[in-house]
């Protein structure tokens, strides 16, 4: 088990390095006229050169990379070109917003997917149709459309929740919940579609296996067969789907943050890209990949633990 | 002149990743087959008998020893040269359900070895129909799909495919184990008849002693990657010298209640003696 953990951890670290290196070299090496962007088109060549020197952009690119890397090791991601804010602190402030939405979406998704998936595998019939309907619905109405519709209906027309803005959970739970529930619902539709179908499929596969029949022949209850045995064996592929779904949700938070005007991670990434704020863009990449690696690691560990062949060796 | 000569063959499957070396599946196996002869290869699971068959067919790469066919060394033949060998060595597998591609019609399946040798079109079709007739299947089978046939009939198709290139040796890997009793008998008869007509040799792999007795001239017994006994069919199956072969014979139940009772008691006796002698020795 330990070897398994170390191997996965190693792979994760490699991933972070590879992605950030590629991003770094692509962005810093692309010749974006940073100084010009900051100073405006009327700047003189001298001003541009002097700003470039200040920002360290006139050094060879490999040197810039290692300098940045060094900073990262100390938790220092540099400073925004435009606001002079430390990027690390900006990201840390923005993360809770995005994570609130994604976390609530995950909770909704997991609960509904398990309920729907299990019920549909056990009973079939109209529940299958419901699942298919949700799946079709999520593909047909992508996040941008659904988000806007929900805002229009619930916020603008019905005034049930605020249309925009984020309320930190510390301030008011109700306020916080109101500000994240709609975006979370938008994200979870797509999630439920894939996760519920996956759970249902995996359960049906398990229920058709020989050992289930043997358990029945020993008088084991249907409830135990469904919820203890088949669910346990179907959990592994479901967890893998969950991690992919989480990554997708994290990506889609870009859209909902714009629609619901949430000052989250995604909108920070968006702004820094539009402005050409290179250190901020890099910080966003690093954080994203890091988050994905952590989530994948947790899921892999859970899978490893679930699988007796890995756990016991 | 020996047709097939296997000398001290060793095989372990390639190790996955950088873990310890995987165990040896064949530990220095030697057998030989003369033209027109059937060598029965008997063993239980884990004996390596299927692996030996696959090595002869070029489907598994040996890690030591040699295989010679008609005097030529064929131990590690690359895929390109395998085509030439296809004219000499063919195969019939155990599972009639997965050894025929369900998406292809029988005619296409039978034509495959011919296509590999460059025979196509009308000529191939002619030979396909002749093959079907040879194995006792009606001509209209050619345009049907495998799923329309029973297990025994599919096995006949597999045999026809093996015969297409007029090989000198056919490796038969448990070809009747998956068949019903009545079908088994008929397919065994077909194997025998084809051998008498064409003089093809068989490496007949099986775990069933009754089957091996019926079709083999000579028998080799395998246990855990090694040959423990070789000899004529009569000698090995009636008066085995090796204790494992003896245990195997006594363990196989016979289809007669009274004779089976005797055999059972003989087996118990042998087990008691073995236990007693190991108790005194240990």
């Amino acid at each position, binding site marked *: 088990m330990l070897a398994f953990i170390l191997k996965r951890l190693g792979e994760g670290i490699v991933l972070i390095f590879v992605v950030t290196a590629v991003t770094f070299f692509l962005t810093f090496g692309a010749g974006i006229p940073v100084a010009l962007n900051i100073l405006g088109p009327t700047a003189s060549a001298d001003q541009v050169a002097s700003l470039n020197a200040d920002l360290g952009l006139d050094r060879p690119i490999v040197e810039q990379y290692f300098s940045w890397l060094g900073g990262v090791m100390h938790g220092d991601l540099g400073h925004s070109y435009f606001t002079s804010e430390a990027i690390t602190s900006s990201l840390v402030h923005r993360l809770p917003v995005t994570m609130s939405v994604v976390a609530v979406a995950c909770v909704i998704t997991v609960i509904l997917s398990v309920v729907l998936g299990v019920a549909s595998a056990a009973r079939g019939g109209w529940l299958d149709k419901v699942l298919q309907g949700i799946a079709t619905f999520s593909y047909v109405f992508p996040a941008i459309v659904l988000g806007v519709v929900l805002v229009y209906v619930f916020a603008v027309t019905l005034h049930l929740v605020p249309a925009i803005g984020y309320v930190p959970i510390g301030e008011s739970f109700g306020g916080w919940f109101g500000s994240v529930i709609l975006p979370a619902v938008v994200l979870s539709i797509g999630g439920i579609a894939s996760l519920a179908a996956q759970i249902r499929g995996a359960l049906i596969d398990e229920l058709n296996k020989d050992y289930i029949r043997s358990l029945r022949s020993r008088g084991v209850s249907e409830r135990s067969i469904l919820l203890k045995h088949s669910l346990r064996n179907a959990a592994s592929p479901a967890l893998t789907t969950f991690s992919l779904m989480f990554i997708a949700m994290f*990506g889609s938070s870009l859209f909902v943050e714009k629609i619901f005007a949430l000052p989250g991670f995604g909108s920070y990434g968006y702004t820094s890209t539009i402005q050409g704020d290179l250190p901020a863009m890099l910080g966003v990449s690093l954080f994203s990949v890091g988050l994905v690696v952590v989530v994948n690691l947790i899921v892999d560990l859970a899978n490893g633990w679930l699988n007796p062949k890995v756990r016991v060796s | 002149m020996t047709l097939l000569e296997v000398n001290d063959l060793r095989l372990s499957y390639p190790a996955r990743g950088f873990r310890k070396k995987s165990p040896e599946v064949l530990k220095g196996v030697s057998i030989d087959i003369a033209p027109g002869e059937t060598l029965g290869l008997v063993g239980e699971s884990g004996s390596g008998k299927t692996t030996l068959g696959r090595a002869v067919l070029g489907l598994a790469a040996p890690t030591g020893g040699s295989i010679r066919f008609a005097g030529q060394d064929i131990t590690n033949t690359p895929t390109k040269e395998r085509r030439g060998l296809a004219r000499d060595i063919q195969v019939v597998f155990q599972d009639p359900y997965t050894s025929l591609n369900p998406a292809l019609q029988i005619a296409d399946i039978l034509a495959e070895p011919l296509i590999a040798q460059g025979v196509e079109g009308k000529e191939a079709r002619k030979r396909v129909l*002749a093959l079907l007739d040879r194995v006792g299947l009606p001509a209209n089978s050619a345009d049907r799909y495998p799923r329309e046939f029973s297990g025994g009939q599919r096995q006949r198709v597999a045999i026809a495919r093996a015969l297409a290139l007029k090989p000198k040796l056919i490796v038969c890997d448990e070809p009747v184990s998956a068949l019903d009793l009545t079908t088994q008998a008929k397919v065994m008869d077909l194997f025998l008849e084809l051998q008498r007509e064409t003089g093809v040799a068989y490496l007949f792999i099986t775990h069933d002693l009754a089957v091996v007795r019926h079709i083999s001239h000579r028998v080799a017994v395998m246990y855990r990657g090694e040959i423990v006994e070789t000899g004529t069919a009569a000698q090995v199956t009636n008066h085995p010298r090796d204790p494992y072969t003896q245990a195997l014979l006594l363990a196989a139940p016979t289809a007669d209640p009274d004779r089976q009772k005797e055999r059972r008691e003989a087996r118990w006796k042998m087990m008691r003696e073995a236990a007693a002698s190991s108790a005194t020795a240990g």
Partner: protein
Amino acid sequence: MTTNEPTVLLPGIDEAEAKKRAGAFARLLRMPLGLLSIIILVAFVILGLLEPVLSNHDPLFASLQHINAPAGTSGWLLGGDQYGRDIWARVLTSINVSLISALIGAGVGLVFGSIFGLIAGYAGGRADAVLSWIFNLLMTFPSLILVMVLAPVIGTTYQGMMAIFGLFLAPGIFRLVRNLVQGVRNELYVDAARVAGLSTWRILSRHVLYVVRGPVVISTVFLASSAIGVQAGLAFLGFGSTQTPSFGSMTGDAFANIYTEPMQFVWPSLFLALLNIGLIFFGNAYRDALAGPQAVVAKKRRRHETSQETVTRYEPDGSVGGGLLKLRNLRVSYPQPDGSEKNVVEGLSLDIHPGEIVGLVGESGSGKTQTAFSILGLLPKEARVGADEMRLAGDSLIGVSQTQMRKLRGGVISYIPQEPMSNLDPSFTVGSQLMEGLTKGMSKAEAKRTILELLERVGIPDPARTFDSYPHQISGGMAQRVLIAGAVASRPKLLIADEPTTALDVTVQAEILDLLRELQGELGMGVLLVTHNFGVVADLCDRVVVMRNGHLVEEGGVREIFHHPSQEYTQELINSILDEETVRMDPPVVVGSQAGGAL
């Protein structure tokens, strides 16, 4: 020439086979959803192609008089947006943008994914390890964020962004293709092709392509929908050239205006939704069509298939009182896709007396396993079971509720399966699985003690260790002993053993048969032993019941059946057993200088 086996075609299969041969695509066109989806997609393509003809204005043209013009204004089919641009013209351009996005995104994903998936699946080994590692890495990239961040670098054309996004779509196809190809590569018919000397290229095109085609098409369709969605999303945010109208930029603009002019949001959303509907329905319909003619169900007519031959029905005379199992006129049937019913067991009657071992023999399709499962009540949901009488120790089993049946199973009736390893739950320890059936009547500690004793009784060397082991840690023979222990734990009256030794080596088989004999003697169980092996019958059974094609052929004492069978079929079976006297005597044939003889 040996006797020809007649081509056994059950009546009715021919039509089904012909339908399957007709091809998935033809079936697709017959399905309402399939047809609809194709119509939608074709319509969109036509609209896109005819854009220069159908639009009245350049999509970027702005007319101040037409700001927020309502739909239906002359010359402005869907009205004007908040900048005065023609919504209909912009919709047409957006259709093209979406279609091209789908082509590029899904295309790139398809090409990269399938080529490398093919290589990884077929070559295996190191190539597979490296490629799988790379694509797994790619799959875990937060693709959206990275595409966005790299946008200024790659260039902000939507085509460029879609090409990059396509790379991130590739892992899904890679995994699919790799797994399919790997599966095919391990099939025996590919081995046969290799032995036949077929080149690798030929093997791939003949055998692999067929299997891979369908699922890849379906996946690509869903990828296309993904690509359209992502392009729309990025455009919504403002990426991609602002000059090029797309559904994303239209909805983005409309979103800013939504409180005043909600309809401007509706038009692009509607078209986008419709395009996606076309794709999704096509994907789903094609998936169903691939599944075969079962998906296309004809009118449901009930037709009972008549059995192919009449057999003298044997009526055991039931006068031997106190029978353990009494079965009269059992019938089991399954509904077929075309509405008829197929009988797999018909008119079966048999008796088992306490302490008696009855062998139920037959070839494949005889219905012996179905009979065993119907006594246990473990047939699949679709099965229709009926009997005049089915009594266990006098109590009728007919019409018994599932709950009651469950109490009987593992209590009065027990079951030993054929394949030991697949009949154990891989995620739970051996001990905990066995205990689960028992804790009904006794405490946990008692149950554990009972199981441990039983494990020892069935010949397991270290019961405590096996109790705590997982199924993958024990051998096949040990697993079968474990399952036997589980079956006899409750001291059942009737034990049903379904080919309990078929999957085992012959030496292990002998030991298991010994064990069954001992246990039966100790517990006085009645045993129904389903088998096709007459040696096993000769070893264990007191009486034999012979079945064929769902009917009873003959039954009697074991010596009678072996030495004096009264039915021709039974005699044929006995004759087919390769006897132990015959040894091959004729010498090897050498025909001329070439083997090949009369062919």
